[in-house]
């Protein structure tokens, strides 16, 4: 008989070390499509799972530049082109006075793009996710650590993968339904 398609198999650990080791083992075993879950950031996982690079800094930089330009040009256009008015005998293009708003706009745009970028790169918001089907996954936000090998992984095998996970001395191994 053919088992109904699942999202993957997950193993639960009770401390970061075992998780990291398990992840490393799985990767050495050749698994690629897997994800580790922990209640706090664990730097080691980044290098184990090769998560070093992300595009966020670039996004933020672009956001910042856009903001800065918007800020300055807005002021320049309004005071010099749109309605040139003599204010207190100051020149129309009083650039020193424009610095502040330019700066603030830079920060604003950069920050907003940082947050939107974060969401985008994490694929959030995603209120529904197969992992939530795992009953004990609730503890992943408390004190438990999960490693999930996804069914999409070429090496994934309905029987072998769980067995393999069992070898990593987890607390428990369970299937993740779609």
């Amino acid at each position, binding site marked *: 008989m053919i088992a109904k398609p699942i999202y993957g198999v997950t193993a639960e650990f009770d401390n970061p070390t075992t998780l990291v080791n398990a992840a490393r083992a799985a990767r050495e075993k050749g698994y690629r499509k897997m994800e580790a879950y922990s209640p706090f950031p664990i730097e080691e996982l980044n290098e184990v799972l090769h998560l070093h690079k992300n595009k966020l800094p670039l996004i933020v930089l672009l956001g910042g530049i856009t903001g800065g330009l918007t800020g300055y040009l807005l002021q320049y256009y309004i005071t010099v082109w749109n309605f040139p*008015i003599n*204010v*207190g*005998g100051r*020149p129309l293009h009083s650039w020193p006075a424009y610095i502040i708003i330019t700066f603030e706009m830079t920060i604003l745009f950069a920050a907003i793009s940082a947050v939107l970028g974060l969401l985008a790169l994490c694929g959030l918001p995603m209120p529904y996710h197969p992992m939530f089907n795992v009953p004990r996954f609730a503890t992943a936000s408390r004190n438990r650590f999960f490693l999930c090998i996804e069914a999409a992984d070429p090496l994934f095998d309905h029987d072998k993968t769980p067995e393999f996970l069992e070898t990593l001395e987890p607390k428990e191994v369970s299937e993740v339904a779609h």
Partner: protein
Amino acid sequence: MPSERKKLDLAAVRALLNGKTNGRDYWRNLEDLASTPEFEELMEREFPRQAIGWSEDEDSVEGRRNFLKMMGASLALAGLTACTRQPTEHIAPYVRQPEELVPGRPLFYATATTLNGVATGVLAESHEGRPTKIEGNPEHPGSLGAADAFMQASVLTMYDPDRSKTLSYNGEIRGWGDFFSTLGEILAVQRTKSGAGIRILTETITSPTMANQIAAIQKLYPAAKFHQWEPAGTHSARAGATQAFGQPVNTYYDLSKANVIVALDSDFLASGHGSLRYARQFSARRRVQGGQTSMNRLYAVEPLPSSTGARADHRLPLRANDIEEFAWALATNLKVANGPTKGENWDIYKWIPGIGKDLQQNAGASLVIAGDYQPPIVHALAHAMNEKLGNVGKTVFYTDPLEVNAQDQLASLQDLVKDLDAGAVDLLLILGGNPAFNAPVELGMGDRLQKAHMRAHLSLYDDETSEICQWRLPETHYLETWGDARAFDGTVTLQQPLIQPLYEGRSALQLLQMLTVDPEASPYAIVKGYWGSQHKGADFENWWRKSVHDGLIADSALPTKTPALHGGAISSPSEKPKMAGKLEVIFRPDPSIYDGRFANNGWLQELPKPVTKITWDNAAIMSPATAHQLGVLKETLNAGDEGVPMVELNYRGRTIKAPVWAQPGQVDGCVVLHLGYGRTRAGRTGTGMGFNPYGFRTANALWHDVGLIAKQTSGSYEIATTQNDHVLDTRRQIIQSGTLAEYLKDPESIRAGAEGPPRGLTMYPEWKYEGYAWGMAIDLNACTGCSACIAACQAENNIAVVGKDQVRRGRAMHWLRVDSYYHGGVNNPEIHNQPVPCMQCENAPCELVCPVQATNHSAEGLNDMVYNRCVGTRYCSNNCPYKVRRFNFYLFSDYETPSLKLLHNPDVTVRSRGVMEKCTYCVQRINHAKIEAEKEGRTVREGEIQTACQATCPTEAIVFGDTNDPNSRVSKMKAEKLNYGLLADLNTRPRTTYLASLRNPNPELEA
């Protein structure tokens, strides 16, 4: 009070009395002088409570406008959404449009306003038939184009919602018909006894037409009696003339020819007949500009600092009594009398020789002026001296009296009282005036008048006198009816109406007419009819039209004459009353509400009184030393911020409680009480303001008397001043001044230190002002601080009245203010007045900080203020070093009262709540002139634009014009070496600049 507090007083007072002022140190009030360590201590103890303390409940004092404010709030909030559409408005065009009238263009009519019966010609501006503004009539000798605060504010009186509107009999509304029939019955009876029961009490009358009526009436009712009573009239001048010449004469002066002037307690620059003209002539002789290097010299002796005293080159504070002694001494020196040559008041005799010499050297070009409030003998002496000096016909002129059957008004009043007591009065017609309130107290007019069987009072307001009359007749305002009156020199001035009577009013002319054979004649018919009978020569109509147009009858001035001084006019000086530990009481008409007739005029009530800057109140004004002796000095140190103490005044067995105002420059040992306050039936504005000195004023001491006892009493009183008293260090370069000699020696010396940074010294590119560049120059040497400009500004620019409490909270709205600074010892400081409008800075600090561009620069260098753009951050005011911006903390403008809506100048926005406002050089006038010029394809002519303040200024101290035109008056003034910018070192580049003030002291007295 605790002894330690006493110590503070002493320290403070010692500091003030010896007037120790380091160098050219100006100070504004006592507090400044009291800069002793004790004083600092005092400050620390006194202030914090106020600084971060609870202020007293405002809601209780907000008064009747509260409702309106709430209304305004709701209106304002209505504008909250961006998508509010304009409410639908309607237009009601004329049915038959008068041909001279073009809707949208104001018309000006010449008419006349009177004070104490004496007329001044004015031009009234009319918008679609609503008079909105008064200007002086340049053609008129008494005005020369200037107008004083009373005239400016008179238009408000006309629209005053509290005016008596309907005719009533014992409180029931009636019609004129009813009154006329009742009058008819009485007259029928009277005719049988030739009018023996008729008494007619009026104010001073100078109207020839009315004189003619009176004559007519007296023909019909030979036994009828006419009485006149003017509380602030020229009684002693009349008596003095009679004493000197054996006949009453009218005196007037020509100051343009006077090199040396001695003012014996005379405020000729700011009050009295012809003062506008005198001020103009006087200041013309002091303008050290355009090559003129000479100045006249003014000696003033007076008890309290007046506008005239402020301008004097030598001012000697004397009690009103001592001025008589001074006059005797001077007369003796000039050999026209043999009075004392020495006395215990050393000051007097120190001065006399110098002045005497100065006068004699300028014989024929000098002038001795006796004040209206000085006793007859002083006037007699002045006449004698002027004659001796050969001034008669040169600087001083005599004519027949201006008033109709010039009589001793006091005697006449007492005569009336006698008849009243005798029950001989059947019909008492009181035409104007308010005798129940302002007659000498011992006559008890309030009760006496009720002895007349039938009493009718014709008046603008339902006042104290109306209260006790059966018939209360609404009177027309001068802008509502025809009439005429004589000016200071007798020139007949015609009064023409600009508007139909707003209410059922009739004029005194009409009422008198009711007693004649042709009772129903219209005022126009009466006046025109009379002059028709007077006019010699053909073509009366043209002559009449011209006269009405000019507002005066050409060459109708009374012929001058030279009455002979009759022997024994001047006997020997009477025994001077001994002070005997008592104080001298001095009565004066109030600078802003006069004898009380203007009590309900908000503009005048809120007009800061010259020098003291008090609004809405009168006070027991005394010298700091006197105040200290009474133990009431200390608390006045910060008047305006907290209450001033009260004194209980006791005089001739009568008692009044009054707040104390310690006034530097006032002579010790006397208390000045300004008349006109303490009204009980003035209207919503004036009732209950201040206290009533008429309660002290008796027939035999109308102006001053010794015998006042003052003692400190419980309670304190809040006085609202527009300027709080603080030290001003001369390093601030606010007032530049010096003597003529210094100036001629080194012209630059006067403004030294007040120069701004050089124009080139900036990183910014210069803004170029092609075309017009409006600017203003204010000649501090001419300004008398009379405050007419403030009133004019208020009328022109729809400036709101905020009420006493708000003034006290520092929220007065005047766009233009007159600062006064004192310099020197507190006993007799120099007084400097400085009008401060918006400076229209080229580098305006206010504009830089406005977040919404509500204020910025026009192409002509005006500092524009766009009310409808203002959101009210008030940042501009904070950043304005001159503090000339005014903020609508509440809905101050009255959008509700119908009659006041008519008053608004349609060319100026009425500012709503939460909006900043300020002087814009009357930009509406600028635009009007520019548009007219543009239409004719020319540029604006020099002098074509006159700002409201400039137009009304009696001394032409304020000059406005195009600074790009080198030939304009303003450019010429700015080119003078006396020209300096206020706080110029801030590099604000003010367009308004000042000409430093000069004094021309007599070297002999300087020593």
